[in-house]
């Protein structure tokens, strides 16, 4: 009876894991064959990878510029969001009572708001303000939905800090700016880094907001590129190796962060 439930619970766990990871494994496997249509195995080959890196595929310049745009937008948006979010978190932390609650609540709403609504409303706002849509609007939009996540990551670091630490720095002769740079920011750094990483990934895989704010100048990020590509008649086969690589890079980053934080915990 007891071993029966144990086997059952293990099987359940594995089933869930398989369901979760099967699609990714599926793409990874089929990135190593030449077949144009998904699901056909025509023997092991690295030609898709070769095409991807040599640029010898149809519309490869479009794909490369989409990847560049994605990274550029993600970097700029998450950097600005980290800055804004940290400052906002310090402000919210120093508020008192009801005001603080209201501000935290207002910060949480954009995170639960569906992307499509954020996207459409930003689109309408930009039109209303006569903003010509392009890089700037996409980056502004990404900053908008990333900032609350930074606030959420930095706030707990502030409450963990000794409340007198900023004053201690002033007391020892630091100007407010020096106290911020030499004491407050180093203390908040872990929260800022996790906020930055979260913002970066949120920006990377955003489709809805980008789609509505990129305008008509032909600006493509990876997600909009793939969407258009798929609608034009089947996915470009070279996307399979690209997705595999992205997945592996993210996996590596995650492993690195986890191992490092485990080490830090042991050290302290």
């Amino acid at each position, binding site marked *: 009876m007891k071993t029966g439930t144990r086997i059952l619970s293990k099987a359940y766990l594995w089933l869930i894991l398989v369901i979760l990871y099967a699609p990714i494994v599926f793409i990874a496997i089929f990135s190593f064959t030449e077949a144009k249509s998904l699901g056909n195995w025509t023997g092991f080959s690295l030609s898709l990878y070769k095409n991807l890196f040599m640029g010898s595929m149809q519309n490869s310049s479009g794909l490369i510029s989409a990847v560049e745009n994605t990274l550029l937008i993600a970097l700029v948006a998450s950097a600005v969001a980290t800055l804004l979010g940290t400052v906002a978190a310090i402000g919210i932390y120093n508020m008192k009572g009801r005001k603080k609650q209201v501000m935290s609540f207002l910060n949480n709403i954009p995170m639960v708001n569906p992307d499509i609504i954020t996207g459409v409303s930003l689109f309408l706002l930009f039109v209303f303000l006569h903003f010509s849509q392009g890089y700037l609007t996409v980056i502004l939009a990404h900053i908008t939905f990333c900032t609350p996540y930074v606030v959420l990551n930095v706030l707990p670091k502030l409450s963990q800090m*000794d409340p007198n630490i900023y004053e201690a720095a002033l007391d020892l002769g630091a100007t407010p700016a020096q106290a911020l740079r030499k004491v407050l920011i180093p203390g908040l750094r872990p929260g800022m880094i996790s906020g930055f990483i979260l913002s970066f990934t949120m920006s990377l895989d955003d489709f809805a907001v980008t789609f509505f704010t990129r305008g008509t100048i032909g600006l493509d990020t990876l997600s909009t590129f793939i969407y258009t590509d798929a609608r034009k008649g089947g996915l470009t086969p070279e996307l399979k190796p690209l997705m595999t690589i992205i997945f592996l890079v993210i996996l590596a980053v995650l492993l690195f962060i986890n191992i490092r934080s485990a080490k830090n915990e042991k050290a*302290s």
Partner: protein
Amino acid sequence: MDERIIDIKHVSKSFGDKNVLRDISLYVKKGEFVTLLGPSGCGKTTLLRMLAGFLQPDEGEILMDGKDLTLVPPHQRRLNTVFQRYALFPHLDVYDNIAFGLKLKKTPSDEIDKKVRKVLKLVSMSDYEDRDVESLSGGQQQRIAIARAIVNQPEILLLDEPLAALDLKMRKDMQIELKEMHKKLGITFIYVTHDQEEALTLSDTIVVMNDGKIQQTGTPIDIYNEPVNCFVADFIGESNILNGRMLRDRRVSFINQEFDCVDEGFGEDVPVDVVVRPEDIYFTTDPARCQFKAKVNSCTFKGVHYEMWVDTESGYELMIQDYDPYPVGSEVMLYIDPDDIQVMKKERLANTYGCKVTGEGKVQFLDTDFECGTEGFQSGDSATATISFKDVELLDHEEDADLVGNIVSILYMGDRYHLTVKTETGENIWVDTNDIWDKGDFVGIKILPESIRLSKSAEGNE
């Protein structure tokens, strides 16, 4: 040495509608060890934070060396603070924590090196420079916090309950070290604590604070031997606080007995408070010396001395400390030296409130309507309502109460408890009772119509 380094003039501060400091005036002499002592919420930390520059007074001014500090930001004040929870910088090691202030001043690195080593030696932490501050114990962190402050050679060191987080043994050791450090450095220490023993041990001058006001300023010996009011007598050490009557100069009566004392100038037949320290009531076997008799009702060993409670023949209960125990139930003869009787002016004889007559038999005070006789007054008149301490009734429920409040302090007066009850509007009502209540209790307050006496208010008594 008599030079004033800090001069606080008529400083007031409120947060919202709470007055934290009310008209504080105080000066600190150069090189002194001054302690601000008081219960939590008395405003002592607020005052310290103003000196450091983290808060601004609403009114009044603070002078340092005769110059106004108001517009000087914290980082330009020549004083350093040791915080209650150390506030060390967790991302820096011991050395960099201590060097923080020196580096900001662009001190050459070999000089920083010399100074950090010297100060580490002073706090007996020489081998710890490379340690992570979070790996240190509470006591060690405290030493680093002190080192970090004094390495900058401030003229004044501010200490905000620096020993509160340490255990008793550690606290005692650090007290001695702080005292020695003060001697060695020769700078002014301003120390905040709620621990009366710490204050008595360390200070040259103690400033006792309560409710945003300075109650008494003096040397530890003055404060202990000659408290100016019941609060100070009760807060510092153990006391028998009793109702008394000053019969004439050098003659006082309390516990239904007349005593010689050394106090003068109170007038004749004036109600006073009398304080007698428990170690100042002596046992005697000589009937000629005996001033009054009592029966021992409890006797507890306290380490160095015994603490005994005795019931006097006149019905008062007194605490006595003595090296020799007397068995419970035994009759003892007691006397008190005139020197050891401290007579204090009574702060108030009854509750008095400015009130408004709102109708026939109706008055309003403490934001509450009361019934009482209003002969001689007309609706709309202002008057003063007087209620004696014993006529205020406390209830453990709200239903029949006129208003509600919290008990903020309890004073045992030998035959009754004298309570201070703070109402919801922040006003105090003083109550004499034989019932036992606890500090912090939420109580209903009832005042019967016949207990309220109205009189014409002479000077718009608000």
